[in-house]
């Protein structure tokens, strides 16, 4: 069997250069519109699925204040979802709405990272997932505020305000729980070990990323790694946690090959839209 070319590459920038510098900020050709749509789905689906996971905590948090804060983050993320998927629908131009995209696609059409669909685990695992994602989200959005597409820049600027707060809060909590009791440290270390290889999917670029980077719409994800390390590593050190030395990354979420968990999320989330097609709510 011939070896198949790997669709993932850790360095999209490199590929973009080989692309012959077709980038520039001119209107996107059709093929690139498809990539733009894909990119917007990635942004929207990350926010949607993580927001959904966080919302599962509502009413079940370990403390009233944390219950409220977690719901707040979920709310922000669902709000961002509406913006990203709204723009995706507009770019696609097939008359679909943000709700159509959220509620009427099946798993293979979802483009979120595997990390965000992971089950919540205990509250510490939820916070660790949040922190690893927040740090990435923060640097990504910061880069996107300079996007060649003003609509992207605008959504990014609005989201960045919220995500700055998410990151500040999740970093504080990770530090407190890592540095708390023996048991909390054990739980946080286990969460970090469990999630690390899923987190690394964030930095794997593919052809879509190459196109986005070349057209100045979005940064090359591999290029965000350094900034992410600079944010994450000092926090983990202060939390007295050991950074896993594995470089292995689970992959596929961005391209629509998901874990088994996503199907259950969608079965629940999409139930009403599927059971009563065409109804308005």
């Amino acid at each position, binding site marked *: 069997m011939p070896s198949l070319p790997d669709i993932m590459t850790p360095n999209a920038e490199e590929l973009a250069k080989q692309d012959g510098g077709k980038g520039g900020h001119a209107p996107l050709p059709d093929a690139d519109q498809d990539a733009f749509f894909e990119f917007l789905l990635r942004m929207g689906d990350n926010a949607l699925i993580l927001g959904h996971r966080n919302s599962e905590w509502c009413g079940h948090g370990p403390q009233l204040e944390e219950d409220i804060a977690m719901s707040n983050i979920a709310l922000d993320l*669902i709000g961002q979802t509406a913006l990203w998927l709204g723009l995706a629908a507009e770019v696609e131009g097939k008359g679909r709405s943000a709700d159509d995209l959220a509620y009427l696609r099946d798993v293979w059409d979802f483009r979120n990272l595997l990390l965000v669909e992971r089950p919540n685990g205990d509250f510490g695992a939820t916070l660790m997932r949040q922190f690893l994602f927040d740090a990435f989200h923060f640097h990504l959005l910061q880069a996107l505020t300079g996007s060649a597409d003003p609509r992207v820049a605008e959504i990014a600027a609005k989201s960045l305000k919220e995500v700055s707060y998410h990151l500040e809060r999740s970093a504080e909590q990770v530090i407190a729980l890592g540095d708390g009791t023996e048991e909390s440290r054990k739980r946080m270390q286990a969460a970090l070990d469990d999630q690390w290889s899923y987190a690394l999917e964030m930095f794997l670029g593919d052809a879509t990323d190459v196109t986005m980077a070349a057209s100045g719409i979005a940064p090359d994800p591999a290029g965000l790694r350094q900034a992410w390390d600079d944010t994450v590593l000092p926090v983990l050190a202060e939390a007295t946690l050991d950074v896993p030395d594995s470089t292995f990354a689970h992959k596929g979420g961005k391209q629509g090959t998901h874990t088994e968990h996503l199907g259950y999320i969608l079965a629940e989330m999409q139930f009403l839209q599927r059971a009563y097609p065409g109804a308005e709510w």
Partner: protein
Amino acid sequence: MYAQLVKSEGTSREDMSPEEIAFQGRIDRNEKIEPKEWMPEGYRKTLIRQIGQHAHSEIVGQLPEGNWITRAPTLERKQILLAKVQDEAGHGLYLYCAAETLGVSRDELLERLHSGDMKYSSIFNYPTLTWADMGAVGWLVDGAAIMNQVPLQRTSYGPYSRAMIRICKEESFHQRQGYAIMMKMANGTPAQKKMAQDALNRLWYPSLMMFGPSDKDSVHSAQSMAWKIKMNTNDELRQKFVDQTVPQAEYLGLTVPDPDLKWNEEKGGYDFSEPDWDEFYQVLKGNGPCNKERLGARVKAWEDGAWYRDAMVAHAKKKASRRPVAAE
């Protein structure tokens, strides 16, 4: 009404000490009582029971609606529902803080909830079975709560009164969003309309129960009313609720599940059937459809979160001890 059958401990007027007579005088002049001021022990205890029960109702009340957050049918509905349930948690927080001013800690109150010593409103022991229940809960349950809470903004205990003022502002938004869901459903597909009617059928009588048993059977009302902890009788509020809600149901094109419901010109209100009070007492005793799930969910959240709370305390202590002593 979020507080039901709160036991009141008072002294009859002829047995009152001079302090108690002076206290009652302040209440009668509509003065607010503040945390550090003298108050009869019975007043304090009754307030702790009532505010505590009210706070518990807010956090247990998160659960029936929280049940549909992950299944909300659109992004907008999901946001509104999340915001609403989050508000309920916020109300719980205000109320626990108000109770703390009476010398009882939040942990102590939660302990009493978990052990079954303190109650929460019976309505939250009913299940939310369809999306229309998100409409009906906002419309009927929050509607009934507002009916009780609006007068409580004038209650005699300052911190409780101020908490109620904040809460009432948000509750009226909750009721409107509930009614907006009902409008969509009632004007929607036949299946949606059926869902809306079914929700009204199931939640009508439990909503009437929220005001507590009839005044003639309510033993603690008189003292609480003298203290202005309770501002209206159960029957007055129930009547007001029915009179307000029936035209709203008619506007939706839905039928209130009471064949004896009839406008009474003479009293200027509706005659209506009483809820099944045996069912009410069974639910209070723990035999409602969801009592075990609701309390179980709260206990589980608390127990599962113990390591988290311990860690936060441990970290705060370490941080404090690591802080360099300030130079003289």
